[in-house]
């Protein structure tokens, strides 16, 4: 990128060494926002004023010799489905337009305590439902590397913000690939941590048994640092894992010698040849670094799409019942309560959200529950079992993150099922609750970036980050 200060680690070191200031770093990022945001639309809300005040306070503290944390002065963007006290949080939905949360998400508090400077709230597919950020009520985000193409989704704004240098890092949420796929399509690093490793408190719920927050960064080391700041037990999230966050920055130099890397013996159809070529190159690089390649099978892989697109909408239909025009957000006035609910929700939700609420309500309704939701939960068990068998013979599994590079805006919007197929490689991780990340590894068709996905078992982050660091060295 155009600035030597673009990586989080570089920014932190440079500010600490007195070579620059938090305010100067912030101004560089705000200048890039000024220049390209109109074209890219990464943000729903830019927080220049509070960011400037925050950066100035950090500079004053550092000058006075006060410690301000491991991310002191780093400009960071947040997906607009994470609660920020007093700052609009919309989920890119008209139904939450104008809502100002009365509390901060745990990840926001942790970033602030670490000295991060929040620069804005990024665009997403409404309620994180989509794979292209075309489902936002506030307009499409464009891929900074080719503005005729999508940035991926649903965390497309967060991926684009990092790729365009609007922020040094950002947070997204990943329910079925919503961090990893946009990371791959925008050429940045994206991490979906083990379920429960990062607190979901203050993340607006989409599908509670699948959602996880994770970072977007330029480098693997930056992602490791971000994970160490946001990860770890939170008493405010009942599904938070009750154990300390593993050190990830410490393992990055350990290499992959002796590691067993799983390769899918049967690759699903539909992958671009250039994407598969980059995956092959990644295997070659890891082998050259001393790892062994092991063929593995995930026999239930092709059924994951069905399981996911029943489980996620079912949970969403329940989670989104709270948008009823009573306590916050939009209300369409009506003569009685039931018609107020129906009119409010009809006016407030976009087409994809309505579709998923309908699908989920149907899958959970009397007479269809066993045929749909119940079966989907059993298929979820099958893929978890497949992984358990696979991880007896390998330490991590490598796949493409996305079957294709970033596609043109509008290409997949008319057929929801085609869009859902973007998630084939990413959803199994969420169903199992495991860890995964996408690392940029060269380019494919149209010179657009290709991401390689590293899948690891639950709590396999240290191993996963060692592989990621090796791929980064080789790319």
């Amino acid at each position, binding site marked *: 990128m155009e600035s030597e200060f673009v990586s989080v680690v570089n920014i932190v070191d440079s500010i600490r060494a007195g070579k620059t200031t938090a305010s100067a770093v912030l101004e560089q990022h705000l200048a890039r926002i000024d220049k390209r945001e109109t074209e890219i639309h990464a943000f729903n809300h830019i927080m220049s004023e509070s960011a400037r005040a925050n950066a100035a306070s950090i500079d004053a503290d550092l000058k006075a010799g006060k410690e301000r944390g491991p991310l002191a002065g780093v400009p960071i963007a947040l997906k607009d489905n994470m609660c920020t006290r007093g700052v609009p949080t919309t989920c890119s939905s008209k139904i939450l337009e104008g809502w*100002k949360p*009365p*509390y901060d998400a745990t990840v926001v508090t942790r970033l602030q305590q670490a000295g991060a400077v929040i620069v804005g709230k990024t665009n997403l597919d409404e309620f994180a439902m989509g794979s292209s950020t075309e489902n936002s009520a506030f307009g499409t985000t464009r891929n900074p590397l080719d503005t005729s193409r999508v940035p991926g989704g649903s965390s497309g704004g967060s991926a684009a913000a990092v790729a365009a240098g609007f922020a040094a890092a950002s947070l997204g949420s990943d329910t079925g690939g919503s961090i990893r796929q946009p990371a791959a399509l925008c050429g940045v690093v994206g991490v979906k941590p083990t*379920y*429960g490793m990062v607190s979901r408190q203050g993340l607006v719920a989409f599908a509670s*048994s699948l959602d996880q927050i994770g970072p977007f960064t330029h480098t693997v080391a930056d992602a490791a640092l971000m994970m160490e700041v946001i990860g770890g037990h939170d*008493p405010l999230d009942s*599904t938070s894992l009750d154990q300390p966050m593993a050190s990830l920055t410490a393992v990055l130099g350990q290499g992959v010698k002796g590691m067993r890397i799983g390769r899918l013996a049967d690759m699903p159809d539909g992958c671009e040849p250039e994407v598969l070529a980059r995956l092959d190159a990644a295997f070659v690089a890891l082998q050259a670094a001393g790892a062994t390649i092991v063929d593995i099978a995930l026999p239930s892989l*092709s*059924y994951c*799409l*069905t*399981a996911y*697109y029943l489980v996620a909408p079912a949970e969403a*239909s329940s989670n989104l*019942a709270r948008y*009823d025009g*009573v*306590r*916050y*957000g*939009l*209300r369409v*006035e*009506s003569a*009685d*309560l*039931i018609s*107020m*609910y*129906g*009119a409010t*929700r*009809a006016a407030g939700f976009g087409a994809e959200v*309505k*579709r998923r609420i*309908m*699908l989920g*309500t*149907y899958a959970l*309704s009397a*007479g*269809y*529950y*066993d*045929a*749909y939701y*119940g*079966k989907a*939960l*059993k*298929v*979820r*068990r*099958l893929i*978890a079992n497949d992984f358990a068998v696979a991880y007896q013979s390998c330490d991590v599994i490598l796949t493409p993150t996305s079957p294709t590079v970033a596609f043109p805006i509008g290409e997949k919007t008319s057929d*929801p099922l085609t869009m859902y197929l973007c998630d084939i490689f990413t959803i199994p991780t969420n169903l199992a*609750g*495991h860890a995964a990340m996408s690392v940029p590894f060269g380019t494919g068709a149209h010179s657009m970036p290709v991401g390689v996905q590293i899948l690891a078992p*639950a709590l396999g982050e240290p191993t996963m980050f060692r592989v990621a660091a090796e791929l980064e060295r080789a790319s």
Partner: protein
Amino acid sequence: MSPSSDAKTTPKITAQVVAKVAHLARLDLTEAELALMTTQLTGMLDHFGDIDKLDLSAVTPMAQPFPIKNVYREDVVVPGLDRQEVLDNAPAPQDGRFRVPPSNGSES
């Protein structure tokens, strides 16, 4: 929950079923939306019929990645959300409460 666990995932979905589901979901859909939704849901549910091929009779459902247990905190008073800050977000707050229209609609 009447059907047995071997129920097939390929029933024909009708506009009437879609309208009923929309009502359950408290979504006022237009006629055009109902028609489109019927077509799209039919297409998706046809695709989702792929799992009918699987013998799932001996498989335990998995609703969560890891076992869930109740989590308790110490029973001590801690500050809650600021009442005014919460009410400021409501479309129609009144006297410290949420005002809603009458609930005597024609619910079925």
